[in-house]
Protein backbone atom coordinates (compact mmCIF):
# COMPACT_ATOMS: atom_id res chain seq x y z
CA UNK A 1 0.00 0.00 0.00
CA UNK A 2 2.74 2.44 1.01
CA UNK A 3 4.78 1.50 -2.05
CA UNK A 4 1.78 2.21 -4.26
CA UNK A 5 1.39 5.66 -2.69
CA UNK A 6 5.01 6.49 -3.29
CA UNK A 7 4.72 5.52 -6.96
CA UNK A 8 1.64 7.72 -7.31
CA UNK A 9 3.50 10.72 -5.85
CA UNK A 10 6.48 10.13 -8.15
CA UNK A 11 4.15 9.85 -11.15
CA UNK A 12 2.43 13.12 -10.17
CA UNK A 13 5.79 14.87 -9.92
CA UNK A 14 6.89 13.55 -13.31
CA UNK A 15 3.64 14.81 -14.86
CA UNK A 16 4.08 18.19 -13.15
CA UNK A 17 7.65 18.37 -14.51
CA UNK A 18 6.49 17.57 -18.00
CA UNK A 19 3.77 20.24 -17.73
CA UNK A 20 6.35 22.83 -16.66
CA UNK A 21 8.59 21.85 -19.58
CA UNK A 22 5.74 22.20 -22.08
CA UNK A 23 4.82 25.59 -20.60
CA UNK A 24 8.43 26.81 -20.85
CA UNK A 25 8.82 25.51 -24.39
CA UNK A 26 5.68 27.29 -25.57
CA UNK A 27 6.38 30.56 -23.78
CA UNK A 28 10.09 30.84 -24.40
CA UNK A 29 9.59 29.77 -28.01
CA UNK A 30 6.74 32.29 -28.23
CA UNK A 31 4.63 29.81 -30.14
CA UNK A 32 1.28 30.51 -28.58
CA UNK A 33 -0.96 27.69 -29.70
CA UNK A 34 -4.11 29.70 -29.31
CA UNK A 35 -3.32 32.69 -31.53
CA UNK A 36 -4.62 35.69 -29.61
CA UNK A 37 -4.97 39.06 -31.30
CA UNK A 38 -6.14 39.80 -34.80
CA UNK A 39 -4.62 39.04 -38.22
CA UNK A 40 -3.72 41.69 -40.81
CA UNK A 41 -2.28 40.99 -44.25
CA UNK A 42 0.49 42.95 -45.95
CA UNK A 43 2.13 42.53 -49.36
CA UNK A 44 5.77 43.50 -49.84
CA UNK A 45 7.90 43.65 -52.98
CA UNK A 46 10.75 41.99 -51.14
CA UNK A 47 11.06 40.72 -47.57
CA UNK A 48 14.66 39.56 -47.88
CA UNK A 49 14.89 36.97 -45.12
CA UNK A 50 11.97 37.89 -42.87
CA UNK A 51 11.03 34.73 -40.97
CA UNK A 52 7.85 33.38 -39.50
CA UNK A 53 7.61 34.44 -35.86
CA UNK A 54 9.61 37.62 -36.49
CA UNK A 55 8.61 40.61 -34.37
CA UNK A 56 6.21 43.36 -35.38
CA UNK A 57 7.06 46.66 -33.72
CA UNK A 58 5.52 50.08 -33.23
CA UNK A 59 7.97 52.65 -31.89
CA UNK A 60 10.31 49.79 -30.93
CA UNK A 61 7.64 48.06 -28.84
CA UNK A 62 6.70 44.55 -29.85
CA UNK A 63 3.00 44.43 -30.74
CA UNK A 64 2.74 41.19 -32.68
CA UNK A 65 4.40 38.52 -34.76
CA UNK A 66 4.66 37.36 -38.34
CA UNK A 67 2.19 34.51 -38.63
CA UNK A 68 2.68 33.31 -42.19
CA UNK A 69 4.61 34.16 -45.36
CA UNK A 70 3.56 33.22 -48.86
CA UNK A 71 4.47 34.08 -52.42
CA UNK A 72 1.62 36.00 -53.98
CA UNK A 73 0.86 36.59 -57.70
CA UNK A 74 3.30 38.94 -59.40
CA UNK A 75 6.22 37.55 -57.38
CA UNK A 76 5.47 39.55 -54.26
CA UNK A 77 5.57 38.41 -50.66
CA UNK A 78 2.26 38.14 -48.89
CA UNK A 79 2.72 38.29 -45.12
CA UNK A 80 0.11 37.77 -42.40
CA UNK A 81 0.74 39.52 -39.10
CA UNK A 82 -0.98 38.73 -35.82
CA UNK A 83 -1.30 41.86 -33.75
CA UNK A 84 -2.27 42.59 -30.14
CA UNK A 85 -6.02 43.06 -29.71
CA UNK A 86 -5.66 46.61 -28.33
CA UNK A 87 -3.55 47.96 -31.20
CA UNK A 88 -5.40 50.41 -33.43
CA UNK A 89 -4.15 50.57 -37.02
CA UNK A 90 -5.42 53.35 -39.26
CA UNK A 91 -6.04 53.22 -42.97
CA UNK A 92 -2.82 55.13 -43.76
CA UNK A 93 -0.56 52.84 -41.73
CA UNK A 94 2.81 51.99 -43.29
CA UNK A 95 4.55 48.63 -42.83
CA UNK A 96 8.31 48.50 -43.45
CA UNK A 97 10.83 45.67 -43.33
CA UNK A 98 13.73 46.72 -41.14
CA UNK A 99 16.89 45.09 -39.78
CA UNK A 100 17.91 45.04 -36.11
CA UNK A 101 21.33 46.64 -36.09
CA UNK A 102 23.29 46.32 -39.30
CA UNK A 103 23.21 42.55 -39.84
CA UNK A 104 20.59 41.53 -37.29
CA UNK A 105 17.23 39.86 -37.72
CA UNK A 106 14.58 41.28 -39.98
CA UNK A 107 11.40 42.60 -38.39
CA UNK A 108 8.29 44.47 -39.47
CA UNK A 109 8.07 48.08 -38.37
CA UNK A 110 4.59 49.58 -38.30
CA UNK A 111 3.71 53.22 -38.35
CA UNK A 112 0.02 53.17 -37.31
CA UNK A 113 -1.07 56.38 -39.06
CA UNK A 114 -3.86 58.76 -38.10
CA UNK A 115 -6.64 58.73 -40.70
CA UNK A 116 -10.31 58.45 -39.71
CA UNK A 117 -10.70 54.89 -40.97
CA UNK A 118 -9.37 51.93 -38.98
CA UNK A 119 -8.09 48.69 -40.48
CA UNK A 120 -10.49 45.95 -39.31
CA UNK A 121 -9.31 42.49 -38.15
CA UNK A 122 -8.47 40.50 -41.27
CA UNK A 123 -7.90 43.74 -43.19
CA UNK A 124 -4.92 44.81 -45.21
CA UNK A 125 -2.13 47.36 -44.79
CA UNK A 126 -1.86 48.98 -48.20
CA UNK A 127 1.33 51.03 -47.96
CA UNK A 128 4.55 49.12 -47.55
CA UNK A 129 8.29 49.58 -47.79
CA UNK A 130 10.34 46.63 -48.95
CA UNK A 131 13.59 45.56 -47.34
CA UNK A 132 16.53 47.77 -48.26
CA UNK A 133 19.55 45.76 -49.25
CA UNK A 134 22.08 47.41 -46.98
CA UNK A 135 25.00 45.29 -48.09
CA UNK A 136 24.36 46.22 -51.70
CA UNK A 137 24.09 49.90 -50.77
CA UNK A 138 27.33 49.80 -48.79
CA UNK A 139 29.23 47.97 -51.53
CA UNK A 140 28.05 50.38 -54.21
CA UNK A 141 29.13 53.18 -51.89
CA UNK A 142 32.57 51.66 -51.24
CA UNK A 143 33.34 50.57 -54.79
CA UNK A 144 31.63 53.51 -56.39
CA UNK A 145 28.46 53.42 -58.41
CA UNK A 146 28.78 52.88 -62.15
Amino acid at each position, binding site marked *: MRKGNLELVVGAFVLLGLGCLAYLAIHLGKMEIMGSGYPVSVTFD*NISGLKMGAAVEVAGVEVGRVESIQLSP*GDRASVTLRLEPGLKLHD*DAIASIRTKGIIGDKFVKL*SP*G*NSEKLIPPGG*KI*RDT*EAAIDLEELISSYIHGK*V
Partner: protein
Amino acid sequence: MFRLLTRTYAVIPIFILVLAVSTAMAASPKEVAKQVIDKALSILNDPAYAGPAKKQQRHDLVKQIVDRHFDYREMAKRSLGATWNSLSNPQRDEFVRIFAELLEASYADKIDRYVKNVRIDYPGERLDGDYAEVPTVVVRPNDRIPLTYRLHNESGTWMVYDVVIEGVSLVSNYRSQFSRVISESSYAELVKRLRTKVNEQRGGA
Protein backbone atom coordinates in the same frame (compact mmCIF):
# COMPACT_ATOMS: atom_id res chain seq x y z
CA MET B 1 -45.54 50.16 -78.90
CA PHE B 2 -45.37 53.96 -78.81
CA ARG B 3 -44.73 53.93 -75.08
CA LEU B 4 -41.99 51.42 -75.54
CA LEU B 5 -40.42 53.63 -78.21
CA THR B 6 -40.45 56.78 -76.03
CA ARG B 7 -39.02 54.83 -73.19
CA THR B 8 -36.21 53.59 -75.41
CA TYR B 9 -35.46 57.13 -76.58
CA ALA B 10 -35.47 58.38 -73.02
CA VAL B 11 -32.91 55.75 -72.14
CA ILE B 12 -30.47 56.73 -74.92
CA PRO B 13 -29.30 60.08 -73.49
CA ILE B 14 -28.81 58.45 -70.10
CA PHE B 15 -26.80 55.71 -71.75
CA ILE B 16 -24.62 58.26 -73.57
CA LEU B 17 -24.11 60.17 -70.31
CA VAL B 18 -23.05 57.00 -68.52
CA LEU B 19 -20.70 56.18 -71.37
CA ALA B 20 -19.17 59.66 -71.29
CA VAL B 21 -18.64 59.51 -67.54
CA SER B 22 -17.15 56.04 -67.70
CA THR B 23 -14.69 56.99 -70.44
CA ALA B 24 -13.62 59.98 -68.35
CA MET B 25 -13.14 57.61 -65.41
CA ALA B 26 -11.45 55.04 -67.60
CA ALA B 27 -8.07 56.80 -67.57
CA SER B 28 -6.22 54.19 -65.52
CA PRO B 29 -3.71 55.30 -62.89
CA LYS B 30 -0.90 54.10 -65.14
CA GLU B 31 -2.15 56.27 -68.02
CA VAL B 32 -2.49 59.26 -65.69
CA ALA B 33 1.08 58.80 -64.44
CA LYS B 34 2.36 58.37 -67.99
CA GLN B 35 0.58 61.49 -69.24
CA VAL B 36 1.89 63.64 -66.39
CA ILE B 37 5.45 62.34 -66.68
CA ASP B 38 5.48 62.65 -70.49
CA LYS B 39 4.23 66.23 -70.35
CA ALA B 40 6.73 67.21 -67.68
CA LEU B 41 9.60 65.55 -69.56
CA SER B 42 8.67 67.25 -72.82
CA ILE B 43 8.94 70.64 -71.10
CA LEU B 44 12.17 69.78 -69.30
CA ASN B 45 13.74 68.60 -72.56
CA ASP B 46 12.30 71.43 -74.67
CA PRO B 47 15.19 73.52 -76.08
CA ALA B 48 12.94 76.60 -75.78
CA TYR B 49 13.14 76.34 -71.97
CA ALA B 50 16.73 75.12 -71.73
CA GLY B 51 19.48 76.92 -69.88
CA PRO B 52 19.79 78.37 -66.38
CA ALA B 53 18.11 81.65 -67.41
CA LYS B 54 14.82 79.89 -68.11
CA LYS B 55 15.02 77.75 -64.98
CA GLN B 56 12.23 79.46 -63.06
CA GLN B 57 9.91 79.45 -66.06
CA ARG B 58 10.65 75.79 -66.71
CA HIS B 59 9.98 74.83 -63.08
CA ASP B 60 6.74 76.81 -62.98
CA LEU B 61 5.42 75.03 -66.06
CA VAL B 62 6.32 71.59 -64.68
CA LYS B 63 4.79 72.48 -61.32
CA GLN B 64 1.52 73.41 -63.03
CA ILE B 65 1.34 69.96 -64.65
CA VAL B 66 2.42 68.04 -61.58
CA ASP B 67 0.19 69.96 -59.14
CA ARG B 68 -2.95 68.77 -60.87
CA HIS B 69 -2.19 65.19 -59.90
CA PHE B 70 -0.26 65.60 -56.65
CA ASP B 71 -2.34 65.58 -53.50
CA TYR B 72 -0.09 67.70 -51.27
CA ARG B 73 -2.75 67.86 -48.56
CA GLU B 74 -2.93 64.08 -48.24
CA MET B 75 0.87 63.81 -48.33
CA ALA B 76 1.26 66.43 -45.62
CA LYS B 77 -1.46 64.83 -43.50
CA ARG B 78 0.07 61.37 -43.77
CA SER B 79 3.56 62.72 -43.09
CA LEU B 80 2.55 64.71 -40.03
CA GLY B 81 0.78 61.80 -38.34
CA ALA B 82 -1.26 62.31 -35.19
CA THR B 83 -0.32 65.99 -34.80
CA TRP B 84 -2.48 66.78 -37.86
CA ASN B 85 -5.65 66.14 -35.84
CA SER B 86 -4.75 68.76 -33.25
CA LEU B 87 -4.19 71.54 -35.80
CA SER B 88 -6.79 74.14 -36.72
CA ASN B 89 -7.83 74.53 -40.34
CA PRO B 90 -5.66 77.61 -41.05
CA GLN B 91 -2.70 75.85 -39.44
CA ARG B 92 -3.30 72.82 -41.67
CA ASP B 93 -3.43 75.00 -44.78
CA GLU B 94 -0.20 76.68 -43.77
CA PHE B 95 1.51 73.34 -43.14
CA VAL B 96 0.37 71.97 -46.53
CA ARG B 97 1.80 75.07 -48.20
CA ILE B 98 5.19 74.78 -46.49
CA PHE B 99 5.26 71.05 -47.20
CA ALA B 100 4.58 71.59 -50.92
CA GLU B 101 7.32 74.24 -50.99
CA LEU B 102 9.71 71.84 -49.29
CA LEU B 103 9.02 69.13 -51.88
CA GLU B 104 9.43 71.57 -54.72
CA ALA B 105 12.67 72.99 -53.34
CA SER B 106 14.16 69.54 -52.63
CA TYR B 107 13.20 67.83 -55.86
CA ALA B 108 13.28 70.53 -58.55
CA ASP B 109 17.06 70.48 -58.91
CA LYS B 110 17.29 66.70 -58.64
CA ILE B 111 14.79 66.33 -61.47
CA ASP B 112 16.78 68.77 -63.60
CA ARG B 113 19.86 66.66 -63.09
CA TYR B 114 18.18 63.34 -63.91
CA VAL B 115 16.17 64.38 -66.92
CA LYS B 116 18.86 64.04 -69.58
CA ASN B 117 18.80 60.85 -71.71
CA VAL B 118 16.13 59.35 -69.56
CA ARG B 119 13.54 56.74 -70.42
CA ILE B 120 10.66 55.72 -68.19
CA ASP B 121 9.37 52.12 -68.18
CA TYR B 122 5.91 51.26 -66.92
CA PRO B 123 5.92 47.57 -65.98
CA GLY B 124 2.28 47.59 -64.84
CA GLU B 125 -0.11 48.80 -62.19
CA ARG B 126 -1.82 47.43 -59.12
CA LEU B 127 -5.40 48.46 -58.45
CA ASP B 128 -7.21 48.05 -55.14
CA GLY B 129 -10.55 49.86 -55.17
CA ASP B 130 -9.90 53.58 -54.83
CA TYR B 131 -6.17 53.02 -54.39
CA ALA B 132 -3.49 52.15 -56.92
CA GLU B 133 0.24 51.63 -57.23
CA VAL B 134 2.05 52.45 -60.46
CA PRO B 135 5.58 51.04 -60.49
CA THR B 136 7.92 52.78 -62.93
CA VAL B 137 11.59 52.41 -63.70
CA VAL B 138 13.70 55.45 -64.54
CA VAL B 139 16.22 54.12 -67.05
CA ARG B 140 19.37 56.10 -67.72
CA PRO B 141 22.37 54.97 -69.76
CA ASN B 142 23.98 53.23 -66.80
CA ASP B 143 21.38 53.35 -64.08
CA ARG B 144 17.97 51.94 -63.26
CA ILE B 145 15.99 53.58 -60.49
CA PRO B 146 12.74 51.91 -59.40
CA LEU B 147 10.17 54.57 -58.59
CA THR B 148 6.64 53.72 -57.53
CA TYR B 149 3.75 56.15 -57.40
CA ARG B 150 0.91 55.53 -54.97
CA LEU B 151 -2.37 57.10 -56.04
CA HIS B 152 -5.86 57.38 -54.69
CA ASN B 153 -9.08 58.22 -56.48
CA GLU B 154 -10.20 61.67 -55.35
CA SER B 155 -13.71 62.17 -56.82
CA GLY B 156 -12.83 60.70 -60.21
CA THR B 157 -9.23 61.93 -60.48
CA TRP B 158 -6.23 59.81 -59.65
CA MET B 159 -3.99 61.77 -57.29
CA VAL B 160 -0.52 60.84 -56.11
CA TYR B 161 -0.19 60.67 -52.30
CA ASP B 162 3.17 58.92 -51.95
CA VAL B 163 6.30 58.30 -54.00
CA VAL B 164 8.53 55.31 -53.27
CA ILE B 165 12.09 55.68 -54.58
CA GLU B 166 14.32 52.56 -54.43
CA GLY B 167 11.94 51.08 -51.89
CA VAL B 168 11.98 54.13 -49.61
CA SER B 169 8.65 55.84 -49.12
CA LEU B 170 8.58 59.63 -49.07
CA VAL B 171 5.69 59.76 -46.59
CA SER B 172 7.27 57.17 -44.28
CA ASN B 173 10.59 59.06 -44.32
CA TYR B 174 8.99 62.40 -43.48
CA ARG B 175 6.62 60.81 -40.95
CA SER B 176 9.47 59.47 -38.82
CA GLN B 177 11.51 62.67 -39.14
CA PHE B 178 8.58 64.94 -38.31
CA SER B 179 7.51 62.86 -35.32
CA ARG B 180 11.07 62.96 -33.99
CA VAL B 181 11.24 66.76 -34.24
CA ILE B 182 7.81 67.14 -32.64
CA SER B 183 8.61 64.81 -29.74
CA GLU B 184 11.98 66.48 -29.14
CA SER B 185 10.64 70.02 -29.27
CA SER B 186 7.29 71.13 -30.72
CA TYR B 187 5.19 71.57 -33.80
CA ALA B 188 6.20 75.25 -33.96
CA GLU B 189 9.85 74.18 -34.08
CA LEU B 190 9.08 71.78 -36.94
CA VAL B 191 7.47 74.55 -38.99
CA LYS B 192 10.45 76.80 -38.26
CA ARG B 193 12.90 74.12 -39.38
CA LEU B 194 10.94 73.42 -42.56
CA ARG B 195 10.94 77.14 -43.40
CA THR B 196 14.69 77.36 -42.85
CA LYS B 197 15.20 74.26 -44.99
CA VAL B 198 13.10 75.68 -47.85
CA ASN B 199 15.01 78.97 -47.76
CA GLU B 200 18.33 77.12 -47.63
CA GLN B 201 17.45 74.97 -50.64
CA ARG B 202 16.29 77.97 -52.61
CA GLY B 203 19.31 80.03 -51.67
CA GLY B 204 21.71 77.17 -52.43
CA ALA B 205 20.07 76.32 -55.73
